[in-house]
């Protein structure tokens, strides 16, 4: 009789341990899924564009704003210079994306005009605050509006200055600092993922 109780007790312990294990594994997998989720859908001048539209392409993403005088043009020129040095075949496998975190000033139309100046392959995108907050969080990127009451600009935007590179299966592979890396490094990084 006693043995039976011990048996039930041990079975219960095992059952509890199993449930606990399933919860832990589930949590870890869920967390990993969240970390891996870098998807987005944003607005271009021609409608909605999603990251999933660029399957089988290496995607370079830069977060910025058009009133940014320094690092944004530097980064877009860098992305464009790297793209121009690829062969036609390689170019067909690459997509450049500029995401504005300043939708108040940067409409999809303005972003289209702005982006194409650097390179016709660059798609200019933006979205509402909730969308941008969600996306930047996924990329571990940051942006913040900073009032500049003495400047005519009224406000500026502090933001992460990295170029994010996503491989052909939609996985974030690396992020580069445009002030520290040269065009050759960027080209090699792109080619390694084509």
């Amino acid at each position, binding site marked *: 009789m006693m043995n039976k109780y011990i048996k039930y007790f041990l079975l219960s312990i095992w059952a509890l341990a199993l449930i606990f294990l399933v919860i832990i594994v589930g949590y870890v997998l869920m967390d990993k899924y969240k970390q891996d989720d870098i998807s987005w859908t944003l607005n271009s001048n021609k409608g909605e564009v999603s990251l999933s539209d660029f399957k089988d392409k290496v995607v370079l993403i830069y977060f910025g704003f058009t009133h940014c*005088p*320094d*690092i944004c*043009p530097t980064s877009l020129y860098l992305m464009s210079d790297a793209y121009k040095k690829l062969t036609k075949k390689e170019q067909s496998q690459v997509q450049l994306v500029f995401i504005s975190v300043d939708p108040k000033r940067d409409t999809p139309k303005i972003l289209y*005009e*702005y982006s194409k*100046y650097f390179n016709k392959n660059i798609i200019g995108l933006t979205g509402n605050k909730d969308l941008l907050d969600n996306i930047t969080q996924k990329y571990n990127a940051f942006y913040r509006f900073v009032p500049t009451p*003495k400047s005519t*600009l009224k406000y500026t935007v502090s933001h992460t200055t990295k170029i994010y590179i996503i491989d052909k299966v939609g996985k974030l592979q690396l992020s580069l*600092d445009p002030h520290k890396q040269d065009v050759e490094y960027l080209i090699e990084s792109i080619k390694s993922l084509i």
Partner: protein
Amino acid sequence: MNKILIFLIMIIISYSSSINIVNAKIRPVPPISKVSSGFMKIISSYNKDIRLIKAKSNFSKITEIHNVKIKNGIMDMFQVPFLTIPANGFTELKAGSYHFMFIDLIKPLKVKEIKSIKLYFDNGVKKIIPIEVKR
């Protein structure tokens, strides 16, 4: 021809005083853009520090002095009231650091165009210098 002559005269004038400016350039930006930035190296042969307190350009309604700081991969940009040029030294306005902000561009900038900018220093010196639109 006249533009080249004006350019040469401006260069001669800029080298004849105790403040010299080199590598002055305006960053080319998309025609739709209403702002651009400017860079240069300001060299002083004065025996004491001087301050650049104001600038005016002939291609934007407003010219401001700004600075950029990049920390932990995040860029902060902010306006500064003046720029100090050390005695017998220089201060460089460059990408990722101090720069001019040209706000409300009067018309789209074209690469290789030569514009002008007037610099005001706290010792009363004013300088008009040529500045080229180039990367």
